[in-house]
């Protein structure tokens, strides 16, 4: 079946099997490798991307369900050399270690900040509660989101990394 999915602003057309998962379409057909695949059961959240502006777990969305819709992945967060503040926050606060959950965590966090620019710690934790990180124990992920909330412009703070504490 032919689908046309707008991915990171560009329409992408492909023939796919009806059963193909969106995560496999993004990774294997489009070779956008930042969206990961971790569990198949919607528990881990490494596959989170945006579908029509909402974070979804792309391991439980069929590619055909995204036909005619808009997808945004982690590759769209940065603007050239300039990182999104959420990316800078993860770096400044050591919110990532192995990096495998990171794209999904950042996509959900970016969505949160777009809808709630100054979330409380509880709101951050609740929003990310459907995603698993095995490395960080979450503290620095929460701090990364708080950092991004505190630095909506991002860039000025990037020059003084040593002054930021996690």
């Amino acid at each position, binding site marked *: 079946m032919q689908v046309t999915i707008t991915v990171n602003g560009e329409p992408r057309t492909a023939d796919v099997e009806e059963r193909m998962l969106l995560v496999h379409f993004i990774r294997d057909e489009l070779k956008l490798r930042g969206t990961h695949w*971790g*569990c198949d059961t919607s528990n881990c959240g490494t596959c989170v991307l945006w579908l029509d502006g909402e974070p979804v777990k792309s391991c439980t969305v069929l590619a055909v369900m995204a036909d005619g819709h808009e997808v945004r992945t982690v590759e769209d*967060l940065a603007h050239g050399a300039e990182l999104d503040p959420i990316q800078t926050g993860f*770096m400044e606060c050591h919110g990532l270690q192995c990096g495998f959950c990171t794209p999904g965590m950042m996509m959900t966090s970016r969505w949160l900040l777009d809808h709630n620019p100054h979330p409380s710690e509880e709101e951050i934790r*609740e929003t990310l509660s459907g995603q698993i990180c*095995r490395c960080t124990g979450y*503290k620095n992920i929460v701090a990364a989101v708080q950092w991004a909330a505190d630095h909506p412009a991002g860039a000025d703070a990037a020059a*003084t990394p040593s002054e930021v504490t996690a």
Partner: protein
Amino acid sequence: MTALDDAPRSAAGNPIGFGRMVRKEDARFLRGEGNYVDDVNLPGMLHSAILRSPYAHARIVSIDTSAAEALEGVHAVITGAVLETLGLAWMPTLSMDTQAVLATDKVRFQGQEVAFVVADSRYIAKDALELIEVEYEALPAVVDARTALEPDAPVIRDDKEGQTSNFIYDWEAGNKDETEAAFAAADVVVTEDILYPRVHPAPMETCGAVAHMDAVTGKLTLWTTTQAPHAHRTLYALVAGLPEQKIQVISPDIGGGFGNKVGIYPGYVCAVVGSIVTGRPVKWVEDRSENLMSTSFARDYHMKASIASTRDGKILAVRVDVLADHGAFNGVAQPTKFPAGFFHIFTGSYDYPAAYCSVRAVYTNKAPGGVAYACSFRITEAAYVIERIVDCLASELAMDPAELRLKNLLRPEQFPYTTPTGWEYDSGNYAETMRVAMDLAGYDELRAEQKAKRERGEYMGIGISFFTEGVGAGPRKHMDILGLGMADGCDLRVHPTGKAQVRLSVQTQGQGHETTFAQIVSHELGIPPEDIEVIHGDTDNTPFGLGTYGSRSTPVSGAAAALVARRVKDKARLIAAAALECSPDDLEWELGRWYVKGDPERGRTIQEIAMDAHGPLELPDGVEGHLDAQVVYNPPNLTYPYGCYICVVDVDPGTGQVKVRRFIAVDDCGTRINPMIVEGQVHGGLADGVGMALMELMAFDEDGNHLGGSFMDYLLPTTMECPDWELGETVTPSPHHPIGAKGVGESATVGSPAAVVNAVLDAIAPFGVRHADMPLTPANVWRAIQGSPVRTDLAVE
């Protein structure tokens, strides 16, 4: 904080040496540009899937692959019979046992590998699995390790000549007679059956491989999820008879390891065979259920622990007898001399003269493995059992568990300290660390709060754990894996412009090596860390070594990095002397520069020396030019990080629900290269501890069905279960490590479960409960409160 934060800063703002700096490796991960195994795509690459056994124990009567082979898009269907013709149906495990690559005679655990399909896509490969007809004759399964040696138990390993039972080995350490004598003379003896149940490391990235056997050159390139690429290369050479010079193992970015990626799995071998058979690259990536059901589990230690003390709480002796469930193949990854790993460090952090342990290992119809999940070679079990039994003793003595620990902790003047089971602890100031933790926690206030709450019918608990690890395996005369000594190499090259590359034998799965190893070299040579590239995870481009697990990267490879930098510094001195036309003895070092004593203006920076080393400068006899060096570091001893953890929980006795309210962790890992990374390592390990203590359940029913085979059943902690970790530190450098670092990767996983469990049991102590086994799920806590605790390793009605 330490004086390390005073390191001078580079032009980029990074510490020249130790201190907090953001990670060099983050840039690619933040942009979705990591390169994990499943991200490797080669021209003409095929995909694959594994057919797995639905039975825990069954005889294979027949396998019919014809329908699968006929499916369009299928390139090969490989069974154990095919592998037998290649001599590859069985492979050695890391414990000198054998493991089926693809089953030939029987299946021995649910999820065992039976057939391997290579196809155009992973969807077609999975379709083909459905078309393979396997006729099984079901056999009774051995599920309960405690019945594995009963006379009528089915023999799982009837493939092994002379194997007439499910017995694997007996092992012991310590002094049995002295221990028994101490027990006989003691005022108080407390005994408890303590299970450390089977758990799984469950890294977010599952295991996988891309194998490319080049038919023309005969070179095998294998991208694979391995924590030990060099050891894997040698094992592939030994097992498959492939020439080792033509094997390149690449461990690209790894999405978490935690010990899960130490061993060689059948899927890796099948991918290699698939590439040989089809002549094309083959990718194999397991799904989550395959990861949880078939790859290396951790723990599964049934421990009977006894502790003897005087009436006033002076510990006299400890004894632990272990029944170890190793699953269907003995696949634990341990130094050869230590079949139970370093379990005999169970004597812990206390001063007493007598200790003894025995370990009996058995086969069961479960997945193989046993050492994984950030355990430091079974030290997790050891730390748990001593910290649990000390709390049981405190309960028996009606003594505060903090007071009991402080009364028995080793004292600073006792180091180096030889334990009753033979370890030589390098350094420590335990009481100070415990005091720091108690102050951070506000221990006395917490006890007062608990007392007031109990009077109101609220159940709050405070749990303490004081752990000592032995990490950095290890001295090669004592420690090898399959005959490979546990020493690690390191190469350093300083280029003419003064920029450097350091090549490691270890590789990162998230620990931040690309940053911290640059900092180690920077600390020694004064080259800014941003000018030092760390190369790792590729056997063609790095020196030999045993890999990253058991918290060994910093203790072993970190020492190698410091020493190779010192070798370069020594060579730089000779070159600087030639350039300055003076004797090397006239030179003194300041960070990044050799200068003439008494004439500090006359000197050469390391960057200038690098250019001199490659230029026309006439060098003294014996100095070859260029600025590089190699070392192999053979550690003289393990390093012994330690810490004190305090957990505060609230328990709802009506539901058994546990809320971890606070968690205070004070670690002493010696010198901290990058405090930010150290703290991150601790945070992650604490989450592991909360998960294992409260959530992670891997039980089996009587037929051997795995009841934790997905993330819907095998629950891992999320943001909601993890508190805002409160960290502290003390710094007691290791006296024998070149930079005094002890390693920290696994400390928190080792130390934290006991703190959580002790807290829960402290909370429900008023119900008369002294012990209950992990995981302390709401149901299990509730059952314990009702006075009817259950076996958490078996299915519960």
